[in-house]
């Protein structure tokens, strides 16, 4: 009998590694799953806010005194995006998600006056109908992309890639390519769909500049055009996208989620969200474009404190995906309705089976019987409540720091709890008075 002490001394050879090898010995290919990276990496929990007492202004503030109004896209667009909170819902495709899930997200975001984003599967009529601010994605695959839908959007997002799976395209497994999804994407039903990695009509930065101008002409220079970049060679990519004329940059770190990806890229490619934000901020500073080109951070943002830390590090807004999905009921056992162990083989709380299309709670499925388990209006209320909670958390920490606007948070308000986070986020290690690395920028 193997005792736990012996297992813990095996270093890299854990029981999970044994199981992984056994599965692959049978499977003959890389493994695919949903959710996010399982790597232990420095994240928002590794940095903290440091309020001031006697050294501060001594102002007594309440959360209600704090503003979270956010305006994005004042560089070239006639109509900038104006949202009540710097938290919006990121692009997730209709296909990866059910129609009910997409509708609930749109309704929930609209209740609190923030934005939603379409995804790599075209726009749903319901999405446009219920979203007060809708960002229209232009992905490499161009599934379901039409000029009419793009023109109806409040912003356009050119997706260069996803932080969860950099340099690979999207996957939608055959179980989810239903007749309706196949029609929407113009694909044969039931096939394992692989999205391309590169766009069909532009390859490098010069082409991107012309492509962005084209999108502006299509939308009559009315709406902002943002570019979503997976955090990899952040400084180069952010500078090139900003120089190509983007109104905003979305930097998507490796803790970002996905409906399906190979574990290889989920766990072993891209860089974490913390240094992603910092490098993007520095890139814009070096170009003299900080605050002229807006910066959105995404990838593993779970609550208002994560969002506030991202803003303090240099973001103007954050986008959430998995957090919003969890508000819809992801990984929640519904008594009398779901049975996670029987249906997907793992208990609620451990499910990463989005790619199988058998989501017990009706979110990442195209099966009408499962989708019925998601009550749209109730789910929308939960999404709205989560967004309100996150906004209040941001307000609370902002007033605790003696500030009246969440956008006034800066890197000076942060310290790191460990050396790793200190170096990645370029903020001082608590108690040390400094960081081992000097940030190239001055912060906000």
């Amino acid at each position, binding site marked *: 009998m193997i005792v736990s002490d012996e297992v813990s001394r095996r270093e890299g050879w854990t029981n999970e590694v044994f199981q992984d090898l056994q*599965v692959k010995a049978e*499977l003959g290919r890389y493994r695919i799953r949903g959710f996010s990276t399982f790597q232990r990496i420095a994240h928002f929990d590794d940095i903290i806010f440091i309020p001031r007492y006697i050294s501060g202004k001594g102002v007594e503030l309440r959360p209600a005194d704090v503003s979270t109004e956010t305006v994005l896209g004042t560089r070239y667009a006639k109509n900038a995006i104006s949202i009540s909170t710097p938290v919006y819902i990121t692009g997730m495709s209709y296909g990866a998600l059910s129609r009910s899930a997409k509708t609930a997200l749109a309704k929930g975001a609209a209740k609190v006056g923030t934005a939603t984003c379409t995804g790599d599967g075209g726009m749903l009529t319901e999405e446009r109908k219920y979203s007060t601010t809708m960002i229209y994605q232009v992905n490499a695959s*161009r599934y379901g992309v039409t000029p009419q839908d793009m023109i109806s959007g409040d912003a356009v997002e050119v997706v260069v890639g996803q932080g969860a799976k950099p340099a690979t395209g999207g996957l939608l497994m055959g179980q989810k390519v239903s007749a309706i999804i196949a029609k929407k994407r113009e694909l044969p039903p039931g096939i394992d769909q692989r999205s391309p990695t590169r766009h069909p009509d532009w390859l490098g930065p010069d082409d991107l500049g012309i492509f962005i101008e084209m999108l502006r002409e299509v939308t009559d220079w009315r709406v902002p055009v943002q570019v979503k970049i997976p955090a990899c060679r952040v400084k180069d990519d952010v500078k090139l996208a900003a120089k190509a004329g983007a109104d905003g940059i979305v930097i998507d770190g490796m803790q970002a989620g996905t409906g399906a990806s190979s574990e290889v890229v989920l766990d072993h490619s891209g860089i974490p969200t913390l240094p992603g934000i910092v490098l993007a901020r520095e890139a814009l500073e070096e170009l003299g474009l900080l605050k002229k080109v807006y910066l959105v951070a995404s990838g593993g943002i779970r609550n208002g404190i994560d969002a506030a830390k991202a803003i303090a590090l240099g973001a103007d807004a954050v986008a959430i995906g998995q957090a919003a999905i969890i508000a819809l009921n992801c990984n929640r056992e519904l008594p009398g309705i779901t049975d996670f162990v029987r249906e997907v083989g793992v208990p609620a709380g451990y499910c990463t089976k989005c790619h199988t299309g058998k989501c017990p709670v009706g979110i990442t499925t195209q099966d009408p019987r499962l989708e019925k388990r998601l009550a749209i209006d109730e789910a929308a209320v939960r999404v709205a409540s989560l967004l309100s909670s996150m906004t209040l958390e941001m307000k609370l920490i902002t007033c605790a720091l003696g500030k009246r606007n969440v956008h006034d948070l800066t890197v000076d308000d942060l310290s790191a709890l460990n050396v790793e986070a200190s170096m990645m986020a370029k903020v001082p290690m608590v108690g040390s008075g400094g960081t081992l690395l000097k940030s190239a920028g001055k912060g906000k």
Partner: protein
Amino acid sequence: MTKRLAGNVPKALSAPVSQGYSIDARKLTTRLLNASIKSGVSKGRHITILNPDARHNLAVGIVKRCSLSFAGSVGYYCCAFCDGISATIEGNSGWGLGDNLMSGSIVIRQDAGASVGASMRGGQILVWGNAGARAGISMKGGTLVIAGNSGFLTGFMMQRGRIIVMGGVGDAAGDSMYEGIVYVGGEIGSLGVDAKTESATRSEEVELRAFLKALKFRDDILPRRFKKIVSAKRLYQYDSLEPLERERLVI
């Protein structure tokens, strides 16, 4: 290279200029030029754009039935994201001509750059010269006709529709295509991943010839036989469920 066939263009494809008016592109910024085009087409008149001078992003995002002609060459993304456009280009084009075309017709009398008809979903694009790399990439419907040769990765990740190349195609033709057909009159440089060739059936040949003749291609310049590139469908399924997942998914 296949000979240019520009002299063979049917006159009926462009409306008489007397019904419309012309705009001199040299006098306007791209923004003003496109605004003028959109304003003109909303009145239902034919517009001739003089001196386009290979300018990028001309006549993009027009979602109305309209008739346009360009008296010269155009740059990248000409007539991109349009629905219902009928356009003739007298010269050459840069990348992405007719990008994401929903419906309508685009005729280019000389050569098209890379990615002509990228992700087009419907309508028809007729290239009287040669096409660059990635012609019909990610194509989702409609017909792309290339009278000359077509470059590398023709029909890459094509999903639907058909591409008819009267001349030859370059390397990696039909790479990773899902559905749709690439007809090739000349030589195939090489096939891409998961692409295979088939002979066009007699009824397909008859239909193709009738279609091309309707476009005023002379009988004597039509290829004697067309080869057909289609998906081998080996990439359709890659067994996405693991054994344990298959066992436990009982619904």
